[in-house]
């Protein structure tokens, strides 16, 4: 039962990671690419690690993985925010409809 739940979480996380990868390839410019990968990686990694916690059961390793999930949820959006902020202040133009892919 717990293994099935773990498998469901890992598959959902895998779905998010694949969507993020497709977004990284298909989106037209810098901002939309970072938008896709930042969000999808955070949730995908969190869900996959949570699935691993359910599969592993209660022990020291799962506590460490739980801390890892918490820190990924804090740091990954902040890193994306920092990258985007630097790009915006240094004058990277956002993509508009009708422009060419960059």
């Amino acid at each position, binding site marked *: 039962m717990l293994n099935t739940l773990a498998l469901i979480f890992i598959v959902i996380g895998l779905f998010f990671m694949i969507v993020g990868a497709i977004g990284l390839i298909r989106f037209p410019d810098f901002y939309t690419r970072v938008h896709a990968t930042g969000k999808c990686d955070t949730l995908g990694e969190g869900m996959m690690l949570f699935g691993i916690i359910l599969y592993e059961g209660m022990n020291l390793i799962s506590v460490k993985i739980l801390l890892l999930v918490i*820190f990924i949820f*804090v*740091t990954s959006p*902040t890193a994306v*925010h*920092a990258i985007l*902020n*630097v790009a915006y*202040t240094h004058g990277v133009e956002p993509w508009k409809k009708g422009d060419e892919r960059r």
Partner: protein
Amino acid sequence: MRRNVIIKTVSRFLVPFIQVYALYVIVHGALGAGGGFQGGVVFAASFILMIIAFGLTCVRERFGYRWIVMLSALGITIYATIGLLCLIPGGNYLEYGSIEAALGIPHLHGYLIDAVEIGIGMTVMAIMTSIIYDMGDTGGESP
């Protein structure tokens, strides 16, 4: 970038955790993966995060040249002293078992390994931080 409240808040939240993890890596070096060098580099990474979030001058005021010189010299002195103390009872350099056998205290070599790792960690942390200072130094101007 310099006055960004999100990056500053998250850095303020994360720096203590990084430093505690660095101490964990240093102390864990006696019985498993880890050690003085890795822990020192992780400790220096917390200073790099502070430089990214708060700027070079702010970090330099708190952890300046005086601290770097003191910590690097003190760490290497601890390492060399314990290494040379092992020569007195007749062992090799850094052969902790000779001191343990001479004094008769059980598990002394574990504490000596920890002390040596702490010395290496202090030196590596100070030197890494000074390298980052020199790389990021633009002559007083904040980029």
